[in-house]
Every structure is written in structure tokens, then in C-alpha cells.
């Protein structure tokens, strides 16, 4: 039985390997990763390009499957899940913040936030109330009816964060969230996510090589050549 309901970890990664094939040549992206993420963590996975940060985040986020090893989310082994069950896990337990925001271009900010709630079956009135409250909380309430192309990068990333936390996920995975932002906007965004972590207890795992992100990590994991070279708590 792979279920460990008693586990207090949100994420547990055991001996994960990921091998890609580049023109038929096997490339080890991850080589035996062991990792746990606890509720309330504000962790940053750092490392140079090609070190496997995004691959690890994708595997934790159930978007990708490991070649070897196991990943547990809330104690459940994701290897045994169907595509439909994985989609449901992503919908209910995980929020994603992408480097390129990845908002739906034809939907307004509010509609983008409401979209994930709609997938969960939240009623329209409640979706709207909560969506507006989130946008207000993130300081972009006045942009609720603007489309992504009418917003700056920082504003779009705030909408993406609102979308990520709209379903009250156990975990938010942020892949290079500041990579496309200027430093001032990046700082404000990181402050916002810290606040959400402190006040609302949302667990964040970042992948980034941005010193500003690394500097705010409560826990820093440095990946090198597909392995965790450093795992330390930062106070």
C-alpha cells in the first residue's frame, strides 16, 4: 500500500530519477532526488540552467512522471493515479505560477481567476466574490475586467498568483516567477507571496536562480547536475 495518510509532509520525493532522450542519447536530468516539503514551507530550488529545477517542479506538480523513484502528495503515491485523477489533484491541491504567466489571453483578469474555481464547480456568485476579493488582496482589483494584453508583466503575474491560490491549494509551485519582471516589480511580487505564506499559511516552492528569490527563501535547495547539492534552512 503506497498511501501514507498519516504523513504530515505535503510532498515527499524518494529516489527520483528522470532520464530524457536527446536524439536517442539518454540524458540524466534528475539523479536520485530525495526531498520533503512541509506545510508552510517557503522553499527555493536554485541552481544553474540545466540543473533540473524545472524538471523537479514538473514532477512534483504531477505534470511529468519520474523515470524511477516515487513522489507522494499528501501521502498518496502519484504513480498509481490516472490522468484524470492527476488533473483533479492539480486542480484541488496545487497552484501553478509560471515564468510566462500563461494567462488565457481572451479572458479578463477576473475570468482567469474564476476559471479554476469554475473547474471545481464553485457557483458563479461565489466565484466572482472570491475572485474579486483575491484581486483586491493582491492590489489589482481595478484590473479585474482587463485582459492580459492590457496589463504589465507584474500585473499579469499577480493575476497568475490569484489564479494559483483561488482553489485554496495545499501547495503553490512557482517556476521562475520573476524571470520576466524588472527587479522592483519582482521584489513587490515576492513580498506579496511572503505575505500569503505568513498570513494565509500557503506553502510555496520556487524554482529560480534569481538572487532576490533565493534571498527570501526559508529553505534553500541547490541543484547541481540533477542532484541536491545543498539543502539548508535559512533564518
Amino acid at each position, binding site marked *: 500500500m503506497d498511501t501514507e495518510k498519516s504523513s504530515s509532509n505535503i510532498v515527499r520525493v524518494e529516489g527520483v530519477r528522470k532520464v530524457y532522450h536527446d536524439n536517442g542519447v539518454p540524458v540524466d536530468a534528475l539523479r536520485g532526488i530525495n526531498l520533503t516539503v512541509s506545510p508552510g514551507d517557503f522553499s527555493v530550488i536554485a541552481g544553474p540552467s540545466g540543473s533540473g529545477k524545472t524538471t523537479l517542479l514538473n514532477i512534483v506538480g504531477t*505534470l511529468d512522471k519520474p523515470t524511477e523513484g516515487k513522489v507522494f502528495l499528501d501521502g498518496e503515491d502519484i504513480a498509481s493515479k490516472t490522468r*484524470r485523477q492527476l*488533473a483533479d489533484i492539480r*486542480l484541488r491541491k496545487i497552484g501553478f505560477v509560471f515564468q*510566462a504567466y500563461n494567462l488565457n489571453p481572451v479572458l479578463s483578469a477576473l475570468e482567469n481567476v474564476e476559471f479554476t474555481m469554475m473547474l471545481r464547480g464553485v457557483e458563479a456568485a461565489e466565484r466572482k466574490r472570491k475572485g474579486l476579493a483575491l484581486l483586491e488582496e493582491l492590489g489589482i482589483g481595478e484590473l479585474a475586467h482587463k485582459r492580459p494584453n492590457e496589463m504589465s508583466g507584474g500585473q499579469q503575474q499577480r493575476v497568475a498568483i490569484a489564479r494559483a491560490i483561488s482553489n485554496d491549494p495545499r501547495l503553490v509551485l512557482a517556476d521562475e516567477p520573476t524571470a520576466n519582471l524588472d527587479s522592483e516589480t519582482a521584489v513587490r511580487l515576492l513580498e506579496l507571496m511572503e505575505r500569503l505564506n505568513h498570513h494565509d499559511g500557503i506553502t510555496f516552492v520556487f524554482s529560480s536562480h534569481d538572487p532576490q528569490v533565493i534571498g527570501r527563501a526559508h529553505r534553500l535547495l541547490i541543484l547541481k547536475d540533477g542532484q541536491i547539492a545543498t539543502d539548508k534552512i535559512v533564518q
Partner: protein
Amino acid sequence: MIGVIALVLTDAISIGMMQQMLTNQIGADAGYIQIHRKGFQTDPSLKNSISNASTVKAAISKDAASCKTSERLRTFGLVSSAYNSSGVSIVGIVPDDEKDVTTIHKYVVKGSYLRDNPDEIIMSTSTADKLRLELGDKVVIMASRVDGSVGSEACRVVGLFETYDSGFDQTHVYIPLTTAQDMLGAPGRISEFVVNPVNPERTETVARRLEADLPAGFEVLTFKQMLPILVMQLRLYDQTIYIFYAIIAIALIFGIVNTMLMAVIERTHELGVDMAIGMSNRRIFRMILTEAFYLGIIGTAAGLAVSLAVYVPLSRSGWDLAMFSESLNSIGAGTIIYPVLKATTLINTIVIIPLAAVAGAVYPALRAVKLQPVETIRMS
């Protein structure tokens, strides 16, 4: 949309044309019901004419209020001028009664309709041309009498007609019934009674009632029995139109496959993000089918709107196809076609087109659900 327009208008014009062929035949000559002596249908000679017309008249009189009737004496004969002769069907009619059951009087283009004066004849312009006749000229008509001898009569041409059907025109001349009976030595004899219910929907009912009331030795035929080929054509068309529906649906399916496949390819990244944030395959599949369904609905609505915009005025004014008059007249359709849009055409279109659109979206939807979110997001 184009498919819907093609389907609706082609169907309406085809049905209109065939119904016209039928109603033209009914209107010009056949009528809705005919009563003959048994055997006349296979051997339409004088020996199969009705001698006891009063029996038939008594049966018909029960429906006098709801039916129009006319009686005819019909035989094959020869019409001759000084220049030429032509074999024709000589039809003796009661001019005023005939007006109530057929429309031949409306087709008179030169001179006048029969006025029940003895020795008058009307014929088609084509027959007159063949015999080199003008209005007022005399012709001789000849036919076998009841006793086997040859009867003849000199008649004056008082009117020329032109119907929708060139074949009919070349083979029919009309004279007063009494003239025909005298010439053929058949006083009181009738070849056929034409009975037209005022409400044509009652044709079968009236025919069955007449059949029951008449003694053995008579046959009661409806237009369906008298014009079996035309009726069969209409029935056959009702079946074959589904082949046309299938062709349109297949063309539409290919169009939708192409459109939706392009939509999926263009939105690969967006669909990947949707999958990443938790949209299930089933929901993505349903979303693409729904989009195709709405495309089908919009296309159907637009197509129907255009079709109706063309159909409504055309159904009133008719579509003048004079340039094809020769071929249209040869099949008895007439040169002005009035399209007829049936409710079944609209219902079939409204059902088939959106369903075909959904069917066409199945393959693109299957392609969409096979997308891997991790790969599609990387595409950004």
C-alpha cells in the same frame, strides 16, 4: 453555412418542381379522381366507355357539395387540315364543367375557350403550327365510332392553348361533349368522370366512398394510381434527399475536422495550461465538441437565414427558368418554378448539420486530450 443554403434551396426547388409536375398533370387533365368503366385504364377505347352514366352521377351527387365534377368522352383519332394530319386524343368535354376541374381554359393563348357551340375545337399552338392552321380555320377530325365505322366532323378552330407540357400539347384536342358523342355514335356515353374534392386532402376518402357506392364494373382511380410514375418520383426523392444530406454532412465533417484541428493546434499552449491547472481530459474533449456544436448551430442559423431570405420572395414570384423552357416543358414542370420548403427539410437541417459538426470535432478533440501539458507549456 454554404452547405445549409445549398441543401435547403436545392431541396425546396426540387420539391417545388416535382409538386408542380404533379399538380400540373392533375390540373390540366387528370384531376384528383376519375371514374371509368372497368378496363378503360388498360384499353381506353369507346367500347370501354360508360353507357349507364346515371348510376355514376347518382353516386357522385352524394358529394356534390364538396366536389366538382366533369364528364368526358375520349378517343384516339386523326385531326387533318389541307396540309397535314396528326394523331391525337380527341376529348369531348362540357366546357363549363371542365373549368371547375381542370385548368385547360387558362392555357388558351389565342382565341377563346370552348363555348359549347357545336363544331368548335381548341388545340395547341404546336398542333396548329404542324397543320398550318390559324384561328377560324376548319379542320376535320376522324375516329372510329362505337359501331366500328368511321365518324368524322368538320370543326372550326376557336382557340389555341399552350400548357407547361409540350408532349401533352401535341396529343390533345378538345371539342364539346355533344359533338363528340354525335360524331362517335355514342349518345349519352361517357369515358370518364373527373371528380375533384374541394379539399384535395379528402381525395382518398371520397374515392373509397365512391368505390363503395358504385356497383361492380366501375373503377375509381385517384391521381396516385393515374400518375404512378410522378408519385413514385416524389416518393423516391423523399428517400434520395438523404443521400444529399449525407454528402453535405460528409463535406461539413471534413470542414469541421480541418477547422477544429487548426483551432487545437493554434491553442496547443493554452490547452496545455488548462490541463496543467487541472482541467480534465473529459472536460477538454467536451469543450471542443461544444465549440463545434455552436459552430454548427451558428452556421445552420446563418445558412437558414440566407436561405429563407432567398426562398420567401422566390416562393411568391417563382423562379423564371425560361431559358430551360424546352427541357422543363418536356417533363411537364413549367418554366416558372415555385420552390416548396417542407418542415421536414428544416428539421433535418437543424438536426443533421450541428450533429455533423460535432462528429467532425471528435478527431481534433482526441488529438487535444493526447497533449502533454509539460511539453505544451515548454512551447511558450
